[in-house]
């Protein structure tokens, strides 16, 4: 009961903020200070968006972008997760990988785009590689920290009950590190999502949410640009709140390993 009213309050608060910002935008857009081509009204943007969605183009653009993100993101998880665990478990691996990560991490992923274009040519390989680069470090470093933060008492208790390396790994270290592993997945996804749009602007051709924005610039289609931004924001929001939010609710929140903020 109270959970439900809490939920409604949260939804009202979120939509409230969005409505205020939208109203302010609409006032400025209709004021006539700026040309309508540059600052289209929201109903105009909505119409364009509706058109792009119903004729399928927006879905294709979003689909391409999402596919590139997913491939790069999953590759980063597939490498970052085991490597992070390995780093936390072995001093030699840590000594090798940590300086490398520290040196590569501060380089913005987009700075690699021209280099990757030279190496891989224009196309999907570049965008996937950029996503991979952006997602890799948050995944790696959070996992590394998460495994180091596993309570030694859990390991001790498990070993006293006869747990060997394999069981320790799957039944203690992985769940014990899960709060930070989930944080790693979350941050990695957000970074991927940010990076992919930039990479598509520079390296993609024909499809992708980044590409459509860049392409619309040529034709002064501000409504298309804003519609695409709305789609980028909406997909990012859905992943952040629904996918990773649920993942957290069903695991570490349920286990009391992280706490929900009280209203």
């Amino acid at each position, binding site marked *: 009961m109270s959970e439900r009213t809490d939920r409604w309050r949260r939804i009202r608060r979120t939509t409230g903020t969005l409505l205020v910002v939208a109203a302010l935008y609409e006032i400025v857009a209709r004021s006539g200070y700026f040309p309508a081509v540059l600052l289209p009204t929201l109903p105009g943007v909505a119409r364009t968006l509706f058109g792009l969605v119903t004729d399928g183009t927006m879905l294709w653009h979003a689909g391409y972008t999402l596919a590139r993100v997913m491939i790069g993101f999953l590759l980063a998880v597939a490498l970052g997760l085991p490597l992070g665990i390995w780093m936390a478990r072995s001093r030699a691996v840590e000594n090798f990988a940590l300086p490398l990560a520290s040196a590569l991490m501060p380089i913005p992923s987009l700075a690699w785009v021209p280099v990757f274009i030279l190496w891989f040519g224009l196309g999907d390989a570049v965008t996937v590689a950029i996503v991979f680069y952006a997602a890799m470090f948050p995944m790696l470093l959070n996992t590394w920290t998460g495994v180091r933060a596993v*309570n030694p*008492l*859990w390991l*001790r*208790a*498990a*070993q*006293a*009950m*006869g*747990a*060997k390396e394999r*069981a320790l790994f799957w*039944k*203690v270290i992985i*769940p*014990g590190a*899960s709060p930070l592993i989930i944080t790693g997945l979350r941050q990695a996804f957000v970074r991927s999502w940010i990076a992919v749009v930039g990479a598509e602007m520079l390296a993609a051709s024909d499809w992708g949410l980044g590409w459509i924005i860049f392409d619309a610039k040529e034709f002064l289609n501000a409504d298309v640009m804003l519609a695409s931004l709305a789609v980028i924001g909406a997909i990012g929001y859905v992943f952040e709140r629904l996918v990773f939010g649920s993942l957290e609710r069903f*695991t570490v929140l*349920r*286990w*009391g*390993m992280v706490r929900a903020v009280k209203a």
Partner: protein
Amino acid sequence: MLPIEVRDVSLVYDTPGGRVHAVEAASFGLAASEFLCIVGPSGCGKSTLLNIIAGFLTPTAGEIRIGGKAVTGRGMDRGVVFQDFAQLFPWRTALGNVEFGLEMKGVAKAERERTALAQLALVKLEKFAHSYPHHLSGGMQQRVAIARALAYNPAVLLMDEPFAALDAMTRDAMQRLLAEVWRETRKTVVYVTHNVAEAVYLADRVVVMTPHPGRVKCEIPITLARPRDPLSVEFLECQKELLRQLGGPGEEDH
């Protein structure tokens, strides 16, 4: 053949401040189903000794024999309960925690669940089988930890001040419960505490340790009939005797 024998066990380690004799030539044995308390002030090496028996630490001299065999390292012949509530796995329910040892033994799921539920019933927590540890009070969490250590049926139960972090009332209730559990399971128990009343309430025999270096000073049998009444004259006499041993000078330092 004794279930546990501690033979001339010493642990010396080097610190920047010099050599520390954490435990020096400790020797004692336990009969089957005996409840032994190790009592001493903090720093006397009682927890270190328990960790040696558990196999978490390797003694620099001497040996631990369980069931007549010298043991090195950890083994499922010993169950361990720690002081810290955080010893439970937060990602497993009470039942899941109790099942862990059985899982490691390769027991089938249905049987595992049956055994674990029986252990939870023993500590009166069957109603909370499906609760996660963070929804349980400190006392309940320690009861789950006891059930977990008993579930895979080790020969010996090792307990390191399991109730020290609980409030006084809960602690009394826990001691009564543990005495009951012990009466029912007839486990051999080594129980470390700095609480004299607790030792007199629970133990068949108390090993008194003194610090710097950590030595066994004496052993005091507690022969009071069970269940024990902590307010009886005999109980208080035992407590006084134990306190005298703890506070008074050791035989060896004149």
